[in-house]
């Protein structure tokens, strides 16, 4: 499993948040964005009398798929091959990138057009192509924007949500060489359309991800809004689809479930503008060559954990991002991964290894809003707590009291010990009542020391009562 190591270890979530919270533009953008989509989602979900039945079917199909993953992948491969496609298997990012670069090189292409695919972001395909002298042109408007800006995505669905129209206008003028351009969204979109049309016509190779791949028929599905997906999967001679192995679904009829769950959960529409479904190659219609790259890159590792593996059920709708109070204030970059938000907090640590993302399982107040909206009922809070257990078990007694983790462990051990015995508990209550006295001001605690100081930055704390409940209970009998 290879996930390119960043030059510096990524910031812990709490640290990244401190920086992100200061960005009021981002916070306002996110608030508007997520508020809008939430309302739309709620409205279109309410329209369906069988929404819960669809969720349950989606959950069950995904669960069944994972438990029989090998069989479905083998069936998918056979079906794609029967339809004239070529199937490649990639154990990790490097292998996947090598496969893609080889195909592109073989066709002598210096430019490829790409549909947005988080999977290709995960493996840093664009960088690998660039190293091979091949330019990958992002064709989703948002991806185009952040590519031109040299940044990275901050939201699964709306990657440039952190940019406003003025910034985008400036970017287009500078990077696309446009002399005059208004900042009206329609004009910005038109500028992108013109620029990319040329590229679509010239490109010999298109690269996409896949939302679903049906094992029974060998059909790949791409769900989109702008039409660039149709362009990339129809016009070039060669199409390469990079797909995580968890995207396979068993049967054609299963699309009837997911094509309802996904659009309503992601953009809050009854149906997204375009869904493309293709099977291998078709004479006289579209690419002459189709390559499907099946990617592992840590997914089989996730599969090992019976509780954690439900993270692989994700259909990348981003509904969880849109209801998460933490994501809404932190933005995607704070998660340090291509997968942000609640799903990111459980998927990233399992894909890249807990040691490299140990703060993510704690990036949540466990409010459960994500679980409520997940179209395939991934129990994100359950997995978060489960991963916290793994973090604690792994860090073990290695951490002494000089680290925050060590002190936390010690404090919780002591607390646990106290709570296991009634007399100890009562003694501790009495002790705390005395020990708190120096901190009391007008009957409240205004400032706590050490690791607990975070509480009293903006909150007063109620002190231990003059008479605890049990003392009162005993006194009244």
């Amino acid at each position, binding site marked *: 499993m290879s996930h390119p190591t960043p030059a510096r270890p990524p910031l812990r979530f709490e640290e990244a948040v401190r920086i992100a919270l200061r960005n009021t533009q981002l916070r306002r953008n996110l608030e508007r964005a997520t508020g*809008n989509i939430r309302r739309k989602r709620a409205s279109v979900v309410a329209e369906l009398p069988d929404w819960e039945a669809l969720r349950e079917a989606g959950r069950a199909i995904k669960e069944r798929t994972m438990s029989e993953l090998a069989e479905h992948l083998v069936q998918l491969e056979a079906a794609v091959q029967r339809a004239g496609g070529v199937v490649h298997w990639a154990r990790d990012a490097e292998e996947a990138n090598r496969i893609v670069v080889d195909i592109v090189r073989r066709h002598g292409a210096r430019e490829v057009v790409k549909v947005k695919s988080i999977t290709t972001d995960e493996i840093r395909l664009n960088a690998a192509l660039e190293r091979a002298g091949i330019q990958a042109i992002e064709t989703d*408007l948002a991806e185009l924007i952040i590519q031109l800006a040299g940044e990275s995505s901050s939201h699964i669905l709306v990657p440039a949500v952190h940019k406003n129209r003025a910034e985008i206008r400036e970017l287009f003028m500078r990077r696309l060489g446009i002399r005059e351009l208004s900042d009206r969204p329609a004009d910005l979109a038109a500028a992108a359309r013109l620029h990319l049309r040329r590229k679509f016509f010239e490109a010999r190779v298109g690269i996409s991800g896949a939302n679903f791949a049906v094992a029974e028929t060998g059909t790949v599905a791409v769900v989109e809004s702008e039409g660039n997906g149709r362009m990339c999967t129809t016009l070039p001679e060669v199409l390469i689809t990079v797909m995580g192995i968890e995207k396979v679904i068993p049967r054609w009829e299963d699309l009837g479930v997911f094509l309802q769950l996904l659009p309503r959960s992601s953009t809050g529409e009854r*149906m997204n503008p375009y869904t493309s479904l*293709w*099977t291998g190659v078709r004479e006289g219609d*579209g690419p002459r060559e189709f390559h499907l790259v099946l990617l592992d890159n840590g997914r089989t*590792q996730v599969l090992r954990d019976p509780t954690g593996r439900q993270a692989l059920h994700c259909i990348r709708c981003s509904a969880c991002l849109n209801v998460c109070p933490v994501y809404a204030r932190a933005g995607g970059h704070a998660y340090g991964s291509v997968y942000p938000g609640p799903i990111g907090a459980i998927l990233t640590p399992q894909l890249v290894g807990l040691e490299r993302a140990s703060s993510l399982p704690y990036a949540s107040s466990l409010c459960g809003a994500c679980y409520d909206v997940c179209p395939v009922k991934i129990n994100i809070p359950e997995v978060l707590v489960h991963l916290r257990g793994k973090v604690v078990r792994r860090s073990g007694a290695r951490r002494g009291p000089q680290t925050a983790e060590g002190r936390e462990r010690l404090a919780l051990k002591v607390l646990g010990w106290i709570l296991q015995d009634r007399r100890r508990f009562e003694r501790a209550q009495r002790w705390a009542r005395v020990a708190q006295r120096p901190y009391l001001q007008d009957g409240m605690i205004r400032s706590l020391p050490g690791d607990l100081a975070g509480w009293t930055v903006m909150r007063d704390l109620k002190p231990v009562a003059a008479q605890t409940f049990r003392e009162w209970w005993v006194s009244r009998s």
Partner: protein
Amino acid sequence: MSTAREEILARIRGALGSASPAGAPIPRAYRQVAEDTPEERLERFAERVAEYRASVRRCDEAGLPATIAEACAARGVKRLVVPPDVPETWIPAGVQPLRDPGLSNADLDAADGVLTGCALGIAETGTIVLDGGARQGRRALSLLPDYHLCVVFAHQVVGIVPEAIERLRPAVAEGRPITFISGPSATSDIELSRVEGVHGPRTLEVVIVR
């Protein structure tokens, strides 16, 4: 030395262990068939297509050519792309048909619009489905021109998505590519205001034929 394929399959089997799944059937309590009448279905289809800002015209079979002509005239279409099997009677007088096969991307891009039939319509979502079958032609035809005029017959409209998926089985068994179209193309990537028209046809017009 194992191949990547062998290794990945081995990893999967290793990860899942020997515990074989119970094999309980997937609970499919969701609607498989819509419960509305054909009238309701057609109404809903027309409404929902219109909600995507795709304009809707209605006619009977006899009035179809005139309706197509009216749409083309209103749009100012002079050069119209048509799939190989679209009937001559559909093509308005005074409009130059550009018949596939033989059209290049540049031809398609320069045309004023494209006229197709469809495989089916989905009422609940206002969706038109093309499956490369009768009167639809290859995918590029309905992708590159900026204006797409699509003829939908009433009997082609199903109620809900699972019905559509079921009806598409023959097409997928034949390996035909399928496209679901729900309104003109759109993006919400600029400050989340929905902007119509990025890459697909920016104008979609539908003719419903009873």
